[in-house]
């Protein structure tokens, strides 16, 4: 359980990180917290030639907010965002989901953007970003681009990021007056990856519901203002569409049932929060 040989580069500038990515592409990996990457290195499941440490670039270390959105830089640790005094006021869904990300110990090292880049199907931050219609800011030596969350997550631990790109930051819309937000999750133990995680945003015209932990990546649906059996039917349809599978921790059927029941609970809670 020792990593294979790799080079370590502490990027002094963003340009240096971009240049290394341009040169090594898929053989380079960004180190930003390392809470998933380092175990993968130790198990030799990841074997990059070079690790690019971006944790010492001041321009990536900021949490900024304006009237519309919060921007979270690539080296902002989960614990720092959770401790940001304005978080709950600015975006209650992020505030509700962050305590579910790992444990206090892993949050003190893990970064918000690192979780997005890793794209575990059960991860909370990608799920919330999707529910909120957030976006990911990517940059390479050539260009910068903004990818909506709905287009970013493409498979189990795979994203729309190109090999020469890094995540500079993510953007989450601020709380919208009249919207209600809710988050629920079930895992085997406190701090585990979710078996099913649900994030909902209720608004005047309906509800937006995102589900994580079931399909290969977080998945979202927008519904008009459904209730009663119509909502049950919608959730049942969503549950089946997620292609839930059996694994060591749960069965597909169990996951579908949680989507139906937790999904309904989270939708109702989000509606209550609108008031």
């Amino acid at each position: 359980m020792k990593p294979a040989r790799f080079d370590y580069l502490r990027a002094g500038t963003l340009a240096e990180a971009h240049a290394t990515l341009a040169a090594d592409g898929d053989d380079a990996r960004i180190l930003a917290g390392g809470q998933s990457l380092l175990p993968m290195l130790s198990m030799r499941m990841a074997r990059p030639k070079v690790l690019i440490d971006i944790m010492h670039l001041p321009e990536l270390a900021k949490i900024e907010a304006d009237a519309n959105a919060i921007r979270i830089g690539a080296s902002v640790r989960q614990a720092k965002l959770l401790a940001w005094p304005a978080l709950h006021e600015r975006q209650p869904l992020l505030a509700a989901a962050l305590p579910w990300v790992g444990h206090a110990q892993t949050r003190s090292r893990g970064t918000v953007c690192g979780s997005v880049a890793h794209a575990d199907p059960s991860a909370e931050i990608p799920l919330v970003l999707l529910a909120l219609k957030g976006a990911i800011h990517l940059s390479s030596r050539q260009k910068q681009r903004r990818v909506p969350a709905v287009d970013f997550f493409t498979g189990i631990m795979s994203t729309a990021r190109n090999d020469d790109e890094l995540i500079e930051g993510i953007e989450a819309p601020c709380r919208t007056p009249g919207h209600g937000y809710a988050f629920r999750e079930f895992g085997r133990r406190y701090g585990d990856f979710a078996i099913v995680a649900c994030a909902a945003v209720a608004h005047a015209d309906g509800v937006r519901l995102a589900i994580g932990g079931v399909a290969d990546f977080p998945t979202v649906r927008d519904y008009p203002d459904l209730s009663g059996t119509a909502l049950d039917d919608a959730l049942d349809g969503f549950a089946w569409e997620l292609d839930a599978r059996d694994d060591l921790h749960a069965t597909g059927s169990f996951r579908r049932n949680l989507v139906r029941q937790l999904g309904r609970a989270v939708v109702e809670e989000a509606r209550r929060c609108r008031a």
Partner: protein
Amino acid sequence: MSRSNRGPGSDAGVDSITNDGAPARRGAVSGEALRLSKADDKSWIGQSVERIEDLTLLAGRGRYIDDVGVPPGTLHAAILRSPHAHAEIRAINTEAARRAHGVAAVITAADVTKLSASLVVGVKAPIECWPIAGGRVRYVGEPVAVVVATDRYLAEDALELIEVDYAPLPAIVDPLAALDPKLPPLHEGLGGNIASDRSFRYGDPERAFAEAARKVSVSISYPRNSCTPIETYGIVATYDPGEDAYDVLANFQGPFSLHAVMARALKVPGNRLRLRTPPDSGGSFGIKQGVFPYVVLIGVTARVAGGPVKWVEDRLEHLCASVSATNRVTQLEAAVDADGRVRALSYDQIEDVGAHIRAPEPATLYRMHGNLTGAYDIRHLTVRNRVVVTNKTPTGLNRGFGGPQMYYALERLMQRVAVELKLDPIDVIRRNLVPAKAFPYRTASGALLDSGDYSHALDVALADGGFAELKKHRDVARAQGRIYGIGCAAVVEPSVSNMGYITTVLTAEERRRAGAKNGAQATATVAFDPLGGVTVHTASAPQGQGHRTVLAQIVADAFGLAPSDIRTVSEIDTARDAWSIASGNYSSRFAAAVGGAAHLAATRLKEKLAHTAAAQLNVPPAEIEFAGGRVRARGNPDNSIPFARLAATSHWSPGMVADGNQALRETVFWTPPELTAPTEADEVNSSLCHGFIFDFCGVEVDRVTGAVRVDKYVTMHDCGRVLHPGMVAGQITGGFAQGIGAALYEEFAYSPDGAFLAGTFADYLLPTTTEVPTPTILHIETPSPFTPLGAKGVGEGNCMSTPVCLANAVADALGITAIDLPMTPAKLAVHIHPTERVSGRVRGRS
């Protein structure tokens, strides 16, 4: 609950007298160590004195195997392991690995078979057990090659260069499949895959079943799990060709009977395998017994490499290939009177020891043999024990050792008796308990239950634990539509294993030919230095429990000193120390056996000192007392000498000491006469001491998620005399946490093709502090008449009682009959969630 505040050291708790005249004391011990001040006339034993071990450990100065310095030039080993459950090894090409940067040697089965012999196997069959695979791999994780390099990184790099040509074979995973004579044997010498098949009969079970008003049965499939210590295996081995001798430092925990197995395998006499243990341990729970095959493997590796070799197992290796508890399939039937009195039991146990029958297996199956009737007075018993091999990791010691598997069946059965006969489960237990006046009580299969008052313990638990309130709470919860249940379990916790119990797997005839094995030699040495300081050494191989503190308490009491006056040494060096085959840390033997031996050694020295002091103080020896660091004439404290001066006398002035009273160093070997060999009728007193546990609990199953919440848990213990209440609470709480793990989270799962599915801690789920509620711990004390201090073991009981207590509660909550561990949300949800209607919209692929 005012009575709960009494500590077991409090005399105010006396409220009944046991059969042997000793007071049965009751009280509760909180999870926090009690900090009592010692009055001059009170003993240190029974008090939660601060642990000697803690300052070092908490300051990060522990000396664990991986921290201990190694000789210059020590090489580092990494092990290539099988990715297949079952495969023929057609060829191994190690050329590229040998040429790799930093590599000193590559070892395969060819080297190991040349330089060592097969490990001794515990059943009579012409089969072998090697620490590395030769022609065939039989489980995922089985060692195939060892690379030795200048550091572990380079060794792991070179592992990737070894080419192994495997021809996969069908795997046997299910122990029931292993019974099939048509399937090819994993070991040719066995013929099939049944390594042992023995039947036992005690009393007149056929008649009891024929006359029974009712028969009640359970069918259990107990899963594989382990108690997963934080510290993994570690070894530093050297071979001295000049003396043809091995010197091995390993975090081995015993039993040291395995020293003989290792020496034989290494083909040296016992005195040429020097085995040492490091001062501190990062936990074991039995698992470190399983380091012994690696002692042989790394020993041979060091011999081939020509220098010291260090190997530290990593977590991935540990989970897939160290040691697992056995999984077991049990059919258990009871012959029952209409009032719930159980007249006879019939066990059919199929024990899965994995790919090899590694010593001391099949001991997991026989450790409980004398205790198959549990806490109950049941005189008629039949047993069929089959041991099978499958393509899974070999099994070994694991906290509870056979108890979790056996009591899961027995206490599920008792719950089913109550349900099927529509009786109160408490009444069924009470009606069958061994009566207090019957002790010492010989069970049908031969155990001699030393002492106890089970009914009294039950009464105290129900009263002080709030059982009536719990039943009301269940009524309220159910009225609210919640899924709530109550479970209970009664368990006899054996401790201090009879080294002869494993021979019950042999027939009486085979035992006669092999020679009787019995007993359990415990040893302790107490020595005085020339300044009158006291040092204690034992071969108990502590694994974090705090043996050194308790030894200091025991010896301080003997000499009228304070525990801080006593130095204790607990690492073992087989070349220098007193030890025997029973040495080591297992079967909860420390308090009862090793603590007792230390007491006896100190007492012997004390008697000699008393004679010398008597001459100096001019009073009879019987008038000498040891107190407050001085030795004095009773009733005349001014007529005294300092203890240290007296203790140093045999160093400085041996001429002043009468013949026979030289007091320098005393080594005691103590073995209890009650631990006799199995009889011709296969009766065996498998353990010396028998504590009693009665647990009850309330659980709620979440209607949405199926998750179990342990709402209340009460555990009553009678472990004889409590030496250190804080440590006893620690043992109970730790065992309880592991019981929660076994009940709700943990399983070494395999796929049907033998792939190992629980290779990381993301798959093998341990309960963390958030998942473990605080149990209410209650005590009564009925001292053991068989041990020097009246203590019994208390290290394993909750691993036996807690899983089945929780399962009985979940069965009560859901109203279900069959329930196997672990009780995962997805498994329980099947009983709660509505049947899934197939959606008319989109169908998943599943």
